């Protein structure tokens, strides 16, 4: 019984981590007031860039760095359009996703079938031998530990540093930040690019840890789930962890069912996590309307100083 739970939890964390990275990245975008619907495309770019770099350099660290840089640059396109040129954020984000799908399919052709040595588990002495939670949380690869750290760091950044306060203010009321002498466009640009970089690491997790290989369109909609989880999380990083693991847990559960040889169709089971996403969206939207959670007031609105109000 405990064994089963332990295995399930372990699979939950591993399935939830790429979504966690992507959700955290999206939260940073949206906290600054920029909607990024390019998450799905960014994950793919991160996955392919990370895989290719690791394959050619033989270093996982290089792979992660390249994944971050590649998506940072891709994010900069979105930032250029939405922040500098004040373009439509929805259209730009959708374009980024389609670009990501297309470009990775094209350049990924030669990568299909290649293999690398993926991330290995590092057991934390002592903690990893705790029953049930030891293995899922303290005997994992380094990226998972990084994701734990990021959840805390992002919370700390937003609520304990002046930078974070500035980003939050810009997401709520850019004019207030502007009249206080802060550069709205600089903060927004960096929030979009750094956030995108985190999404890229989430993508790289798929091709470097989950299944160490490149498969076309391997993100399989996880980027969209991250977009939905941002709302579920109420733009807070600790809640993003919860949401990502809920989704990861459902993925793990349906795999477990399949392995047990149930008579329910595999297609239905695979649908479960996505169905859950829709449910989450409905519930969190209702909660939002009742005033719980806090969507940044200026989310989706370009800021133009000379726009007469």
């Amino acid at each position, binding site marked *: 019984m405990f064994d089963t739970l332990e295995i399930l939890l372990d699979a939950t964390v591993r399935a939830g981590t790429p979504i966690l990275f992507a959700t955290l990245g999206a939260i940073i975008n949206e906290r600054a007031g920029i909607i990024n619907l390019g998450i799905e495309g960014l994950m793919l770019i991160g996955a392919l860039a990370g895989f290719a770099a690791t394959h050619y350099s033989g270093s996982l660290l290089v792979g992660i760095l390249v994944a971050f840089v590649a998506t940072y640059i891709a994010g900069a396109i979105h930032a250029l359009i939405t922040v500098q040129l004040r373009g439509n954020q929805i259209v730009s984000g959708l374009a980024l996703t389609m670009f990501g799908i297309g470009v990775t399919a094209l350049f990924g052709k030669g990568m299909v079938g290649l293999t690398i040595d993926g991330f290995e588990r590092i057991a934390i002495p002592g903690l990893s031998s705790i029953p049930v939670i030891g293995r899922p949380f303290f005997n994992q690869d380094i990226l998972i530990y990084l994701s734990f750290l990021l959840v805390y760091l992002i919370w700390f950044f937003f609520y304990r540093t002046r930078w974070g306060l500035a980003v939050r*203010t810009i997401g*709520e*009321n850019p*004019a207030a930040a502007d009249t206080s002498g802060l*550069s709205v466009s600089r903060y927004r640009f960096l929030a979009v690019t750094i956030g995108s970089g985190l999404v890229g690491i989430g993508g790289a997790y798929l091709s470097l840890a989950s299944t160490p290989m490149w498969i076309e369109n391997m993100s399989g909609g996880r980027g969209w789930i991250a977009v939905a989880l941002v709302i579920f999380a109420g733009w807070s990083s600790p809640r993003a962890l919860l949401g990502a693991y809920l989704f990861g847990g459902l993925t793990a559960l349906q795999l477990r069912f399949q392995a047990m040889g149930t008579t329910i169709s595999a297609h239905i089971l695979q649908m479960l996590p996505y169905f859950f996403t829709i449910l989450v969206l409905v519930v969190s939207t209702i909660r939002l309307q009742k005033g719980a959670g806090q969507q940044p007031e200026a989310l989706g609105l370009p800021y133009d100083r000379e726009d*007469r*109000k």
Partner: protein
Amino acid sequence: MLQIENIRKTFPGVVALDAVSFSVKEGEIHTLLGENGAGKSTLMNVLTGLYHPDRGSIRLAGEEVHFTSPRDSLSRGIGMVHQHFMLVPAHSVFENILLALDGVPNFFKRREWKAKIQALIDEFQLDLDLDTPVWKLSIGAQQWIELIKLLMRDCRLLILDEPTAVLTPQEANRLFDVLRRLKEQGKSIIFISHKMREVMAISDRVTILKKGRSIDTLARGEFDEARLASLMIGHDRIPEWQKNLQMSDEIVLTIDNLSVRNDRGLADLDKFNLTLKKGEILGIAGVAGNGQKALAEVLTGLRNATQGRILARGEDITNSNARRSYIAGIAHIPEDLKAIGIAPDMSVDENLIMKSFKNGAFRTWIFQDKRAIRRNAEEKIEQFAIKSGPDGTPVRYLSGGNIQKVIIARELSEEPSVLVALYPTRGLDIGSAEYVHKVIADGADQGMSTILIAEDLDELLKLSDRIAVMFRGRLIGYADPRSTTREEIGLMMSGENRNAGSAA
């Protein structure tokens, strides 16, 4: 210390500032007086670097400066309290102030900075709790936050853009006390207003702006109310009107225990009661944000009541379509024209029949009768003296006053029994505002009742037969404009009911 010369600023299609010059001395309160649309706010946005002037110069202590962002002006000690507060409602008072400060490290010590800000709050004996989220605070308190932001930065020149528009008379006096103290400390203040009473009370010098030009600067002793008013208005013709004080006792509208909840589940209107008599102009006084908008919206059918009833001559019209023909509404025209009231890209003709396009007079079967629509427009343009430009001009190109006239003409065309006017003169120049008043007063003579919601007490006192005071969505009480002082109404606006027993 500050000299402004020949500033010009245009927006696409509009000359907001034409030629403005004036100067501010150390330790003086300098008032910029001008009608709505005279360019006061634009001028200040130029001065703080938010807008870039097309022409002209700004000199600070003799040295010419070019501000490209508010950061520049702040670093030179110029700070501004904007008319629309630059605050984040979801953040705490502390976070709002902290972000505006200079020299806060990125990893700041919470306690230390809180103490610093608290010290200043105590110095001016303000009632502000640093941990409260801003949305929970009154507008008056929010203004203190804006002022604290500037004082913490040690600004030498403070600009206040119509700071009293949202305050009760008591709060305004409190603000003036603080401003005088700041002046004694050697700070200069630019005070923007169009309320004569305040200008007289506080100014050392006054510069009058009109249509984007600075007309004159007068020092204390050189000006009186009449002089200032005539300079501000110039040769514009002001429509004259007279109010008929006779009012019948027939009650045409009863609001009974009416509540309206907003998206957050909070009550915008909370068990509100009101009676309106035939031919009456009933003024609604209250600090903005105390439910006036909800009242207008529920009466004109934009929102539904969650509780209570609206009765028209005893008949229940709550949430029913009947109220549409019974009650008409006008609201002020926001500058950006995005809000309700008109379809900005459609012509005057079309906007005028928007309420009655189903009317047989304007159509043949399903087709519009263009000729009838045009004839109607010509009538209305003549009757309400609308300057509408060439035939077919989209309404958006009209001035605020003329757009307001289009709306009034349309709303009155169905001869409603009740007119709800929500800030009908906000943003209008004096001539247009008086025209609106005239229409309301004339309507009263013909038996139309008006609920006039305004934030300017003088406007309410002048026009109303009775004044009802609102606070937090409730009716605090009625006041007789002939026997009640501004101060008494001010007290009621802050929630105090002077005659709790007999009111309501």
